[in-house]
């Protein structure tokens, strides 16, 4: 069955360093992969989309990579700040689908001052 794995343990990073989160998927060939941010008590908020033919995508301090051979996406936050502390969800999307069936459980990121 299709499976999405994100590190279930919280990731603690010192302020100013680069945080790297991992999303691995199996039995799945997504055409796109999205990353969302979720703060406690709130709904997820879209951050970035990367397509299968894109190796890397950047938005301000955020960078996402997509390796279809390794079946993995990496999400980087450079120059991290305490305000970046949140849970980050990855969501691979297949082609021709109008609904998002599978989501990663998310990785909690804690940026320490």
């Amino acid at each position, binding site marked *: 069955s299709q499976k999405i794995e994100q590190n279930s343990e919280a990731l603690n990073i010192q302020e100013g360093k680069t945080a790297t989160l991992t999303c691995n998927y199996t039995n799945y060939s997504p055409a796109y992969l999205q990353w969302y941010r979720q703060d406690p008590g709130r709904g997820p908020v879209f951050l970035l989309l990367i397509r299968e033919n894109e190796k890397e995508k950047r938005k301000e301090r955020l960078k996402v990579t997509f390796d279809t051979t390794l079946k993995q996406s990496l999400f980087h936050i450079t120059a991290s700040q305490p305000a970046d502390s949140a849970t980050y969800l990855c969501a691979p999307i297949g082609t021709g689908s109008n*609904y998002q069936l599978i989501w990663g459980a998310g990785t909690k990121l804690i940026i320490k001052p």
Partner: protein
Amino acid sequence: DAGITQSPRHKVTETGTPVTLRCHQTENHRYMYWYRQDPGHGLRLIHYSYGVKDTDKGEVSDGYSVSRSKTEDFLLTLESATSSQTSVYFCAISDLGTSGGNEQFFGPGTRLTVL
């Protein structure tokens, strides 16, 4: 922020009682989704709608029904609530669906506790 509201925001109910959660949007988006989120699990799709009166099942639809009589409203009903349905429920909307990688906009969530 996308105009999505959910009501109620919190609810405590007893096993066996019917419960209806409401999602209301002001964005005129075609697609609407109901998810549940539990610790250690990713968001799981319950039902979704691709237009007025057009709905389909998601991964965890057993025990849930939905209705969409207007573009702006998507109702989720638990016919007879069970303790396993204790969860946080999120509504999401999307103008073009997820095809093409279109993003979803999420509501604030409803925390439901079934005793």
